[in-house]
């Protein structure tokens, strides 16, 4: 993954960048499988490596596939990224170790979900039980977000096309 990231930063040809980003997503999906988060791995592989790569390629077909030379100084951006990264890493120092049984995440409501979930919902997959039943409102919100994104794309790009069709029709008449 580190190699893919370095390649993305160094490459000037955007086609190469898009392909490397797809490879990065596929590697991220394998990490999710290793962490037993198969549901997330599904989504990462389909959206990250598949659909977003296609959308990037569609954008490249509309624009150009060579990146312009940056005009500003890269050192300022590098400093901002380094400081933000250092602060984020400092923030993780307080977090409990991965898999720590004493971590708050394993104490609060999780035991109830894991023990009561399959019994109360009759659904062996706890992820689905939590997502759809215990956290139904959150999931409804997520679906609404996707709905809104779709409506936004239709409004922004769809209107543009309808407008162009009208102007073309007007030009033909004239």
């Amino acid at each position, binding site marked *: 993954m580190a190699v893919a990231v370095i390649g993305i930063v160094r490459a000037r040809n955007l086609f190469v960048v898009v392909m490397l980003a797809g490879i990065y997503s596929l590697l991220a999906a394998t990490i999710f499988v290793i962490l037993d988060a198969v549901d997330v791995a599904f989504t990462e592989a389909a959206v990250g490596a598949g659909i977003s790569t296609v959308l990037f390629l569609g954008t490249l077909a*509309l624009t150009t596939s060579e990146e312009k030379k940056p005009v500003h100084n890269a050192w300022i951006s590098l400093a901002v990224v380094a400081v933000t990264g250092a602060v984020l890493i400092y923030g993780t120092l307080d977090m409990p170790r991965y898999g720590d049984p004493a971590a708050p995440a394993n104490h609060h409501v999780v035991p109830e979900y894991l023990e009561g979930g399959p019994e109360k919902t009759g*659904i062996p997959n706890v*992820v689905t039980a939590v997502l*759809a*039943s215990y956290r139904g409102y959150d999931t409804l919100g997520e679906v609404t977000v996707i709905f809104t994104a*779709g409506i936004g*794309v*239709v409004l922004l790009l769809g209107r543009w096309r309808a407008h162009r069709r009208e102007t073309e029709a007007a030009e033909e008449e004239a």
Partner: protein
Amino acid sequence: MRDLLILRVVTKLLMPFILIFALYVQFHGDYGPGGGFQAGVIFGAGFILYGLVFGLDDLRGVLSSDVLRAGFALGVLIFAGVGVAGLLLGGNYLDYNVLAHDPVHGQHLGILLIEFGVGVTVASVMVSIFYYFAGRER
């Protein structure tokens, strides 16, 4: 890419399996990994592959953008409608226990329905975003 025989044949061979796998992920999400979000993106990715190989016009013949736009709203309506059904049957909003005589059955039914709603919305949004990006010309 219409003339590439290998791509056309392989896509035609793969399409049924992708769609069946999406439906499996959708309706088997209660028992194994998966659910509406994952099934929706796999379903959408299948149609996007078809559109890439056979062209947008062929894909529009299968799924018109009007159908997709209806799909956006239909999925959210199914999800919200299950919540309202719970209200009408005397429970709280999005309370599945009251949907059937047995609370566990009610949970099953509710989760199946809302996952279906999620899948419909996700798949149609994915395919139509592809439409609008790929359908633009310079």
